[in-house]
Protein backbone atom coordinates (compact mmCIF):
# COMPACT_ATOMS: atom_id res chain seq x y z
CA UNK A 1 0.00 0.00 0.00
CA UNK A 2 1.36 3.39 -0.92
CA UNK A 3 0.60 6.62 0.90
CA UNK A 4 1.50 10.02 -0.47
CA UNK A 5 2.07 12.83 2.03
CA UNK A 6 3.74 16.18 2.32
CA UNK A 7 7.41 16.10 3.21
CA UNK A 8 8.02 17.74 6.60
CA UNK A 9 10.00 20.97 6.74
CA UNK A 10 13.24 19.51 8.11
CA UNK A 11 14.85 22.90 8.66
CA UNK A 12 11.91 23.97 10.80
CA UNK A 13 12.30 20.79 12.90
CA UNK A 14 16.01 21.62 13.24
CA UNK A 15 15.10 25.13 14.49
CA UNK A 16 12.68 23.60 17.02
CA UNK A 17 15.41 21.23 18.25
CA UNK A 18 17.94 24.05 18.57
CA UNK A 19 15.50 26.28 20.44
CA UNK A 20 14.47 23.44 22.77
CA UNK A 21 18.16 22.66 23.49
CA UNK A 22 18.76 26.33 24.34
CA UNK A 23 15.67 26.26 26.57
CA UNK A 24 17.01 23.18 28.35
CA UNK A 25 20.33 24.89 29.06
CA UNK A 26 18.62 28.05 30.30
CA UNK A 27 16.33 25.99 32.49
CA UNK A 28 19.17 23.92 33.93
CA UNK A 29 21.58 26.73 34.74
CA UNK A 30 19.83 30.12 34.67
CA UNK A 31 16.31 29.81 36.04
CA UNK A 32 16.02 29.76 39.84
CA UNK A 33 13.13 27.31 40.23
CA UNK A 34 12.52 24.31 42.45
CA UNK A 35 14.69 21.25 41.59
CA UNK A 36 11.66 18.96 41.27
CA UNK A 37 9.90 21.25 38.78
CA UNK A 38 13.20 21.69 36.95
CA UNK A 39 13.61 17.91 36.73
CA UNK A 40 10.11 17.44 35.31
CA UNK A 41 10.49 20.28 32.81
CA UNK A 42 13.90 19.01 31.62
CA UNK A 43 12.52 15.49 31.13
CA UNK A 44 9.51 16.91 29.28
CA UNK A 45 11.77 18.93 26.94
CA UNK A 46 14.02 15.89 26.31
CA UNK A 47 11.02 13.69 25.46
CA UNK A 48 9.64 16.45 23.21
CA UNK A 49 12.95 16.64 21.32
CA UNK A 50 13.23 12.86 21.05
CA UNK A 51 9.65 12.71 19.73
CA UNK A 52 10.45 15.31 17.06
CA UNK A 53 13.42 13.22 15.89
CA UNK A 54 11.41 9.99 15.91
CA UNK A 55 8.30 11.37 14.24
CA UNK A 56 9.85 13.57 11.56
CA UNK A 57 13.46 12.48 10.94
CA UNK A 58 12.74 8.74 11.34
CA UNK A 59 9.37 9.31 9.62
CA UNK A 60 7.38 7.41 12.23
CA UNK A 61 4.59 9.95 11.77
CA UNK A 62 4.16 8.71 8.21
CA UNK A 63 4.71 4.98 8.72
CA UNK A 64 1.99 2.38 9.01
CA UNK A 65 0.70 1.50 12.46
CA UNK A 66 2.22 -1.98 12.57
CA UNK A 67 5.71 -0.50 12.16
CA UNK A 68 4.97 2.27 14.66
CA UNK A 69 3.84 -0.31 17.21
CA UNK A 70 7.06 -2.25 16.69
CA UNK A 71 9.04 0.91 17.41
CA UNK A 72 6.94 1.90 20.42
CA UNK A 73 6.65 -1.48 22.19
CA UNK A 74 10.13 -1.41 23.81
CA UNK A 75 9.36 1.92 25.51
CA UNK A 76 6.73 0.69 28.02
CA UNK A 77 8.91 -2.36 28.61
CA UNK A 78 11.81 -0.04 29.44
CA UNK A 79 9.63 1.98 31.84
CA UNK A 80 8.47 -1.24 33.55
CA UNK A 81 12.11 -2.32 33.89
CA UNK A 82 13.13 0.99 35.45
CA UNK A 83 10.15 1.11 37.84
CA UNK A 84 10.71 -2.51 38.86
CA UNK A 85 14.37 -1.78 39.55
CA UNK A 86 13.53 1.34 41.53
CA UNK A 87 10.93 -0.50 43.61
CA UNK A 88 13.51 -3.17 44.42
CA UNK A 89 16.25 -0.76 45.45
CA UNK A 90 14.51 2.30 46.81
CA UNK A 91 11.00 1.69 48.06
Amino acid sequence: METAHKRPNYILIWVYLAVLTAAELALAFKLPISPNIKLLLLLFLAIWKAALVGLFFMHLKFERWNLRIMAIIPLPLAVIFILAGMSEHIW
Partner: protein
Amino acid sequence: MTHAAATVDQMRPPYPAERGLDVYNTKLGMWVFLASEVMFFAALIGTYIILRFGAPGEWAKPGIVLNIKITAFNTFLLICSSVSMVKAYAAIQDGDPKKMRFWLLLTILGGATFVGIQVYEYIHLIEHGFVPSGVREGSELAELVAKGQLPAATMGLYGSTFFTMTGFHGFHVTCGVISMTYLYLTKALPGKYTKQSYGGIETVGLYWHFVDLVWIILFTIVYLI
Protein backbone atom coordinates in the same frame (compact mmCIF):
# COMPACT_ATOMS: atom_id res chain seq x y z
CA MET B 1 8.65 26.34 0.62
CA THR B 2 8.15 24.59 -2.69
CA HIS B 3 10.74 22.07 -1.56
CA ALA B 4 9.06 21.64 1.81
CA ALA B 5 5.66 21.33 0.27
CA ALA B 6 6.76 18.84 -2.36
CA THR B 7 4.61 15.79 -2.28
CA VAL B 8 6.65 12.66 -1.92
CA ASP B 9 5.95 9.06 -1.38
CA GLN B 10 8.10 7.93 1.53
CA MET B 11 6.09 4.79 2.12
CA ARG B 12 6.98 3.32 -1.23
CA PRO B 13 9.80 0.89 -0.56
CA PRO B 14 12.76 0.95 -2.92
CA TYR B 15 12.78 -2.86 -2.87
CA PRO B 16 9.93 -5.38 -2.98
CA ALA B 17 8.24 -5.24 0.41
CA GLU B 18 7.14 -8.05 2.67
CA ARG B 19 3.40 -8.54 2.76
CA GLY B 20 1.71 -7.25 5.88
CA LEU B 21 4.23 -4.75 7.12
CA ASP B 22 4.80 -3.30 3.65
CA VAL B 23 8.40 -2.61 4.55
CA TYR B 24 11.42 -3.97 2.72
CA ASN B 25 13.59 -6.44 4.62
CA THR B 26 16.61 -4.23 5.34
CA LYS B 27 14.44 -1.51 6.84
CA LEU B 28 12.47 -4.02 8.88
CA GLY B 29 15.74 -5.53 10.09
CA MET B 30 16.98 -2.11 11.15
CA TRP B 31 13.75 -1.42 13.08
CA VAL B 32 14.04 -4.77 14.89
CA PHE B 33 17.66 -3.93 15.71
CA LEU B 34 16.65 -0.47 16.95
CA ALA B 35 13.97 -2.03 19.16
CA SER B 36 16.71 -4.12 20.80
CA GLU B 37 18.86 -0.99 21.08
CA VAL B 38 16.06 0.76 22.96
CA MET B 39 16.20 -2.03 25.53
CA PHE B 40 19.99 -1.81 25.68
CA PHE B 41 20.04 1.91 26.41
CA ALA B 42 17.02 1.57 28.70
CA ALA B 43 19.09 -0.86 30.77
CA LEU B 44 21.95 1.64 31.00
CA ILE B 45 19.74 4.65 31.74
CA GLY B 46 17.57 2.62 34.12
CA THR B 47 20.63 1.46 36.03
CA TYR B 48 21.82 5.06 36.26
CA ILE B 49 18.46 6.24 37.61
CA ILE B 50 18.30 3.41 40.14
CA LEU B 51 21.87 4.01 41.33
CA ARG B 52 21.44 7.78 41.47
CA PHE B 53 18.19 7.83 43.39
CA GLY B 54 19.25 4.97 45.63
CA ALA B 55 22.73 6.41 46.25
CA PRO B 56 23.96 6.60 49.83
CA GLY B 57 24.28 10.38 49.77
CA GLU B 58 24.29 13.44 47.58
CA TRP B 59 25.09 13.11 43.87
CA ALA B 60 27.80 15.32 42.35
CA LYS B 61 26.55 18.39 40.47
CA PRO B 62 27.37 17.84 36.77
CA GLY B 63 28.35 21.51 36.32
CA ILE B 64 31.29 21.10 38.73
CA VAL B 65 32.74 17.95 37.16
CA LEU B 66 31.75 18.11 33.48
CA ASN B 67 32.31 20.67 30.75
CA ILE B 68 28.70 21.45 29.87
CA LYS B 69 29.46 24.12 27.25
CA ILE B 70 31.50 21.87 25.00
CA THR B 71 28.97 19.04 25.34
CA ALA B 72 26.09 21.42 24.56
CA PHE B 73 27.93 22.33 21.37
CA ASN B 74 28.42 18.63 20.65
CA THR B 75 24.68 18.05 21.15
CA PHE B 76 23.91 20.81 18.68
CA LEU B 77 26.41 19.28 16.25
CA LEU B 78 24.71 15.87 16.44
CA ILE B 79 21.30 17.47 15.86
CA CYS B 80 22.76 19.25 12.79
CA SER B 81 24.16 15.96 11.49
CA SER B 82 20.73 14.38 11.88
CA VAL B 83 19.27 17.15 9.73
CA SER B 84 21.98 16.70 7.09
CA MET B 85 21.25 12.94 7.07
CA VAL B 86 17.56 13.47 6.44
CA LYS B 87 18.43 16.02 3.75
CA ALA B 88 20.59 13.36 2.05
CA TYR B 89 17.61 11.01 2.15
CA ALA B 90 15.30 13.68 0.72
CA ALA B 91 17.83 14.49 -2.02
CA ILE B 92 18.05 10.91 -3.30
CA GLN B 93 14.26 10.60 -3.12
CA ASP B 94 14.16 13.60 -5.45
CA GLY B 95 16.67 11.85 -7.72
CA ASP B 96 19.59 14.18 -6.97
CA PRO B 97 22.63 11.99 -6.13
CA LYS B 98 25.04 14.94 -6.16
CA LYS B 99 23.14 16.71 -3.40
CA MET B 100 22.75 13.41 -1.57
CA ARG B 101 26.55 12.91 -1.59
CA PHE B 102 27.07 16.45 -0.26
CA TRP B 103 24.66 15.99 2.67
CA LEU B 104 25.96 12.50 3.45
CA LEU B 105 29.55 13.77 3.55
CA LEU B 106 28.44 16.59 5.85
CA THR B 107 26.79 14.01 8.13
CA ILE B 108 29.97 11.92 8.24
CA LEU B 109 32.03 15.00 9.11
CA GLY B 110 29.53 16.00 11.82
CA GLY B 111 29.62 12.52 13.35
CA ALA B 112 33.42 12.32 13.22
CA THR B 113 33.69 15.75 14.87
CA PHE B 114 31.28 14.62 17.60
CA VAL B 115 33.51 11.62 18.35
CA GLY B 116 36.62 13.82 18.26
CA ILE B 117 35.12 16.27 20.74
CA GLN B 118 34.03 13.40 23.00
CA VAL B 119 37.58 12.01 23.00
CA TYR B 120 38.88 15.50 23.84
CA GLU B 121 36.32 15.72 26.66
CA TYR B 122 37.42 12.35 28.06
CA ILE B 123 41.09 13.37 27.98
CA HIS B 124 40.22 16.66 29.69
CA LEU B 125 38.15 14.90 32.37
CA ILE B 126 40.80 12.28 33.07
CA GLU B 127 43.47 15.00 33.33
CA HIS B 128 41.35 16.72 35.96
CA GLY B 129 40.99 13.47 37.87
CA PHE B 130 37.54 12.22 36.83
CA VAL B 131 38.01 8.53 35.97
CA PRO B 132 35.62 5.55 35.66
CA SER B 133 36.41 4.51 39.23
CA GLY B 134 35.58 7.96 40.57
CA VAL B 135 38.22 10.54 41.45
CA ARG B 136 41.98 9.99 41.04
CA GLU B 137 44.03 10.65 44.15
CA GLY B 138 46.07 13.84 44.13
CA SER B 139 44.05 15.37 41.28
CA GLU B 140 42.20 18.68 41.05
CA LEU B 141 38.85 16.96 41.66
CA ALA B 142 40.27 15.06 44.66
CA GLU B 143 40.94 18.46 46.26
CA LEU B 144 37.31 19.44 45.71
CA VAL B 145 36.23 16.18 47.34
CA ALA B 146 38.54 16.94 50.30
CA LYS B 147 36.99 20.44 50.61
CA GLY B 148 33.51 18.91 50.61
CA GLN B 149 32.47 20.51 47.31
CA LEU B 150 32.03 17.06 45.76
CA PRO B 151 30.49 14.07 47.57
CA ALA B 152 33.10 11.37 48.28
CA ALA B 153 30.56 8.57 48.73
CA THR B 154 29.00 8.68 45.26
CA MET B 155 31.86 9.75 42.98
CA GLY B 156 32.68 6.11 42.14
CA LEU B 157 29.10 5.44 41.05
CA TYR B 158 29.04 8.70 39.14
CA GLY B 159 32.28 7.95 37.27
CA SER B 160 31.36 4.40 36.33
CA THR B 161 27.84 5.28 35.12
CA PHE B 162 28.99 8.39 33.26
CA PHE B 163 31.76 6.65 31.33
CA THR B 164 29.64 3.55 30.63
CA MET B 165 26.69 5.46 29.19
CA THR B 166 28.60 8.08 27.22
CA GLY B 167 31.20 5.48 26.17
CA PHE B 168 28.62 3.11 24.72
CA HIS B 169 26.91 6.00 22.97
CA GLY B 170 30.24 7.17 21.55
CA PHE B 171 30.85 3.62 20.31
CA HIS B 172 27.48 3.72 18.51
CA VAL B 173 28.34 7.07 16.91
CA THR B 174 31.68 5.64 15.77
CA CYS B 175 29.92 2.62 14.22
CA GLY B 176 27.53 5.01 12.46
CA VAL B 177 30.39 7.09 11.05
CA ILE B 178 32.16 3.93 9.81
CA SER B 179 28.94 2.61 8.22
CA MET B 180 28.17 5.91 6.50
CA THR B 181 31.75 6.23 5.26
CA TYR B 182 31.55 2.69 3.85
CA LEU B 183 28.26 3.50 2.07
CA TYR B 184 29.66 6.80 0.82
CA LEU B 185 32.73 5.17 -0.70
CA THR B 186 31.17 1.99 -2.07
CA LYS B 187 27.66 3.11 -3.04
CA ALA B 188 27.19 6.88 -3.07
CA LEU B 189 30.40 7.85 -4.90
CA PRO B 190 30.05 5.18 -7.66
CA GLY B 191 26.47 6.39 -8.18
CA LYS B 192 24.70 3.20 -7.11
CA TYR B 193 21.91 5.07 -5.31
CA THR B 194 19.08 6.23 -7.52
CA LYS B 195 15.56 7.57 -7.14
CA GLN B 196 14.36 3.96 -7.37
CA SER B 197 17.00 2.37 -5.10
CA TYR B 198 18.07 4.16 -1.93
CA GLY B 199 17.44 1.57 0.80
CA GLY B 200 20.95 1.89 2.28
CA ILE B 201 20.58 5.63 2.83
CA GLU B 202 17.22 5.21 4.54
CA THR B 203 18.42 2.32 6.71
CA VAL B 204 21.65 3.95 7.88
CA GLY B 205 19.67 7.16 8.34
CA LEU B 206 17.31 5.41 10.76
CA TYR B 207 20.32 4.24 12.79
CA TRP B 208 21.85 7.72 12.76
CA HIS B 209 18.65 9.43 13.93
CA PHE B 210 18.31 6.84 16.69
CA VAL B 211 21.83 7.64 17.90
CA ASP B 212 20.86 11.33 17.93
CA LEU B 213 17.64 10.53 19.81
CA VAL B 214 19.52 8.57 22.48
CA TRP B 215 21.99 11.42 22.92
CA ILE B 216 19.14 13.89 23.44
CA ILE B 217 17.96 11.79 26.40
CA LEU B 218 21.49 11.09 27.71
CA PHE B 219 22.50 14.75 27.54
CA THR B 220 19.56 15.76 29.70
CA ILE B 221 19.92 12.95 32.22
CA VAL B 222 23.71 12.99 32.58
CA TYR B 223 24.66 16.62 31.97
CA LEU B 224 21.67 18.73 32.97
CA ILE B 225 19.93 16.95 35.84
